[in-house]
């Protein structure tokens, strides 16, 4: 397990309390899980994603991520319709472990209410939350 100082927390995404991140792109939002989350999970063996066209509200469960001995649910940082999923994860789930913010992205959505993005935590707030968890 990484020390908090070793956890990668880029500035260009916003975070949720369940350790997902969202990144604002031109027309869509990209979603994945944080470096802290992948480190806690250990070797990821499978990611279950929804189908293109599925709709969710903010906070809805949209899939699961599995390690050898555990399953964790994934929750939407903001609501919307799924426009693409990362098919590379089917054969290479380890991308989530190795590159959680880039090649390990999970899905892209068209947001129903883009303002929800601003409600998410920025890097500093998420780091504070992680420090709080440690205690």
């Amino acid at each position: 397990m990484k020390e908090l100082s070793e956890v990668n927390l880029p500035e260009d995404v916003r975070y949720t309390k369940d350790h997902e991140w969202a990144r604002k792109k031109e027309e869509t939002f990209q979603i994945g899980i944080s470096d802290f989350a992948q480190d806690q999970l250990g070797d990821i063996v499978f990611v279950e994603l929804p189908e293109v066209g599925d709709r969710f509200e903010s906070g809805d469960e949209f899939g699961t991520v599995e390690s050898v001995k555990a399953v964790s649910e994934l929750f939407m940082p903001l609501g919307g319709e799924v426009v693409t999923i990362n098919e590379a994860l089917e054969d290479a789930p380890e991308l989530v472990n190795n590159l959680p913010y880039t090649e390990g992205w999970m899905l892209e959505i068209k947001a129903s209410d883009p303002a929800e993005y601003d409600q998410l935590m920025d890097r500093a707030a998420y780091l504070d939350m992680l420090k709080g968890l440690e205690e």
Partner: protein
Amino acid sequence: MIDSVGTRGLILNEPFLWERGGKGRTGYSLPRRDVPSVPLPDHLAGDGPDFPDLSEVEVVRHYTRLSTWNYGVDSGMYPLGSCTMKYNPKTNDRQASLTGFSGAHPLVPSELCQGALQLIYDLEHHLAHVAGLDAVSVQPSAGAQGELAGMLIFSAYHRDQGKPRSKILIPDTAHGTNPASAALCGYKAVPVETGPDGVLLPETVEALMDDDTAGIMVTNPNTLGLFETHIQAIADIIHAKDGLVYADGANMNAVMGVVDFGRAGVDVLHINLHKTFSTPHGGGGPGSGPVCVCKRLEPFLPVPRVVKTGESYALSEDFPKSIGKLHAFYGNFGIMVRAYSYMLSMGPKLKDVSQHAVLNANYIKEKLKDVYHLPFDVPCMHECVFTDKFLEAHKITTLDVAKRLIDYGFHPPTIYFPLVVHGAIMIEPTESESLENIDQFIATMRQIAQEAKENPSLLTEAPRNPKVRRMDETQAARKPCLRG
């Protein structure tokens, strides 16, 4: 330094079956052909399976070598918590292989199978007696199917009352089969938090129980190895709202001849014959999971049931409220024969079994609690649970301890269950172990605790003695290769 039970040894490699053999070899004596050959219609005919052809010697060497890579209760101690790996008496296997039993077709008229029907009837009667309940069906094939039967009975009971219910209370220490079985019946599992002393508290249950809750599934003794001391108060709370109490009897080895589940307020209980009643685990089954009920739930038991009229036994489907059938025939009869033989071999000494099982677990608890962290320093039942708290300082995990035990010639205890205990190590010695063996186990665990401090790589690199070292489970899950 102690002497290790585990040592190096020459065992042999053996490839896959299909990496052996040669076309035309056989390990089977084909019965004489005394009729002409008749072809099948072309469009139905296939080419037959692509199996290797092996000689008898190849078959014997193959499986003999494979068996040497395994460790069973006959090899040594197997202190797996909640699994009750007791000795499997050989006379039980002899009885099951009597041709009257092994060669019996299940659909012959009842006059021609009185022996089996009597055995089922008597076994059900004896199990009811040990449990303190009124009626039993031995039809479920395993504990999980017994739980399913129990949940179906709950569901049938409330529908019969005209008031189906949608929720069921399940403690956070429950075995995974509990919520899984409840879900198969459409129940929503409502988690119940265990109290600070490791047992359920009546007030916690009271706060959750309502008219839409079918009841509660308790394991008693629970998976922390403790008797649920408030079971009666909890049962009263459940019954007050016409709910039912289900007991998972996986840990019954602790309380035979001691506890009366009927008096404790339990309505439905399942038993694992492959745990408490000594039938062999077989590498994962077959087992048997009889379901026991109180009188008012008897009408709901699975059918067919064996009924006795005078001195004769017969199968009857005449139970209109029955939940139905769970097995194509009557359950794992061959397993029932073994459990029945065990019960008759022990008789009232089933109580001694529980007493010795509980004594052994408490003895281990006392002798290890200074080197492994004990979350509940109270008398335990047939198993004791430690956490990994003392190991964390040395960056050693429960898994490392388990793997090191293998090098010393012991099967590891149950690990990482129940989930409410961090890095759980659940030790169930059973009554089968001698004092010397238990002392050897204790000395080994103490040695490993020492190694964790002084030479941790002995643990993290373990095991080294068996045929294989730690397996790459990540690869097995990422790139599953499930056949050859």
